[in-house]
Every structure is written in C-alpha cells, then in structure tokens.
C-alpha cells in the first residue's frame, strides 16, 4: 500500500531553546550518563570483594582528580534525574501540565538539584574532616 508523504515534526535545531525542551533533553542525557555509573558501582563492589589491595586501588581511582570530577558530575546528574523524574511522575498522574506550572516546577528542579549536589559534597568533605 503506497502511503502518502505525511507531515513530520520539525527537528530539534529549528526550535528556539526553551527551559522545558532543554530539561527534557537533559533528562535523557543524565539517564545515559548515570547508566555508565552502574559500571563504576559494580566495579567498586567487585574491588571490595576482591580484597584490600584491589579496594585501595579503587578508592585511589575514585579519589583522583578524574575520579572526583566524574563523581561530582554523577552526583549532579543523579539529583537532576531524581527530581525531574518526580516531575515526570507528576505529569503521568495528570498534574502540572499547565505552562506556568511546568516552568515553575522546572526551575524548582534546576535550583534544588544544584543545591542538593553542593550540599552532598560539602557534607562529604565535612564527614572526612576537611573542615
């Protein structure tokens, strides 16, 4: 059956970036990035199971500049994905679709994610006696 050419939706680059669209893309990107974190988590558990030498090595990798940068980005991605995920669950329940509400919850997620990420790291350094 020959199908007529149907209208297709314009692709991302023709839209003016908006908070709502950027946050939607960010949700996917943080999801992909967090999936890579599963590899690090399982690697860390395996190192702990393999004994003190392996675990010390894993802790040194995690504590290196690259390790800390990745962990900081994972923390930020985690809080963003968690909070924006709650926003998605609210949408699934039929709440918050109005444009002003979507913007208000959107900014709330952005600001809370940043605050929680910084708080987690301040607590982390405080717990190890940095200050």
């Amino acid at each position, binding site marked *: *059956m020959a199908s007529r050419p149907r209208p297709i939706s314009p692709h991302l680059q023709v839209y003016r970036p908006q908070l709502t669209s950027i946050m939607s893309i960010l949700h996917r990107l943080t*999801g992909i990035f967090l999936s890579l974190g599963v590899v690090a988590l*399982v690697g860390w558990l*395996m190192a702990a*199971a393999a004994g*003190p030498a392996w*675990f010390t090595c894993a802790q040194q990798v995690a504590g290196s500049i690259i390790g800390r940068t990745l962990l900081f980005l994972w923390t930020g991605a985690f809080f963003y994905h*968690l909070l924006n*995920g709650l926003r998605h669950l609210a949408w699934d329940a039929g709440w918050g679709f109005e444009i002003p509400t979507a913007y208000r919850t959107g900014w709330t997620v952005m600001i809370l994610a940043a605050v929680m990420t910084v708080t*987690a790291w301040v607590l982390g350094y405080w717990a190890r006696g940095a200050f």
Partner: protein
Amino acid sequence: MADAGNKNRANKSLRSDLGRVRGLGSAKEGVHHWWAQRMTALALIPLSLWFVAALVFMTDVDHATAIWWLGSPLTLGLMGLFLIALIYHAVLGLQVVIEDYIHGHATKLILLLLVQASGFALGAAGIVAMLIIVIYGG
C-alpha cells in the same frame, strides 16, 4: 460481496499491510515497558537516596570499614534491591533512546542486545560481589 466489503474496510485501516503481516501491535506487550519504567522509578526514589546518603559518609573508608558496612544483612538486602531496580530502569531507558535514535535495523538490534546483555552481566557481577563479601568477608 461480503469479501469485497471486508477488503474495502481493510484498505481504510490505519495499519499498514506490513504492520498487519508482522502482527506487532501494542497488544503484544501493552503498557508493560511504560509501567515497569515508572515502577522501577518509584522504587529507586528511596533506594537511590539511601545509597547516595551512605556514599557521602564513606568517601575515605578503608577496606575493613567498607566490608563491615557492605557485609551487613541490611546493606545486602537494600543493595540487592537497588542494583536490580537500577539496572532494570537503566536498560529500559537506554532501550527507548536506542529505539528513538538508531534507525538501522541491524545496528539497533545489536545495540539492544548489548545493552540487555550488559545489564544482566553487571547485575550478576554486583550481586555475586555482595555475596562474596557477606560470606567470605571480602
């Protein structure tokens, strides 16, 4: 006459001939993927917060302390649930991303298989590591 009527109706159907031949309607799985993605998300709210909160206070632990924490029955149970919900949720999410952006049939299939196989492998490795810690003490 009845046949001609059926044929006419069939041509007006919104489903393509190929779609009808393949029989891959939504009835094959319904909302299972969508539902599982949300249920794992709900489970991950407390589990992931527990995990991150624990990690925040364990940035400079030595092996003995880590084993003491990881080896407790409570940690074993919560970590097991966390790993399963996390990997299930990640595989479902990556599956959607692949299906949305990868259009080559072979590439798509291979990537989907890789993601699912990695999910099973990582889940098994994580749980085996936890069991080794609980049984042998790392």
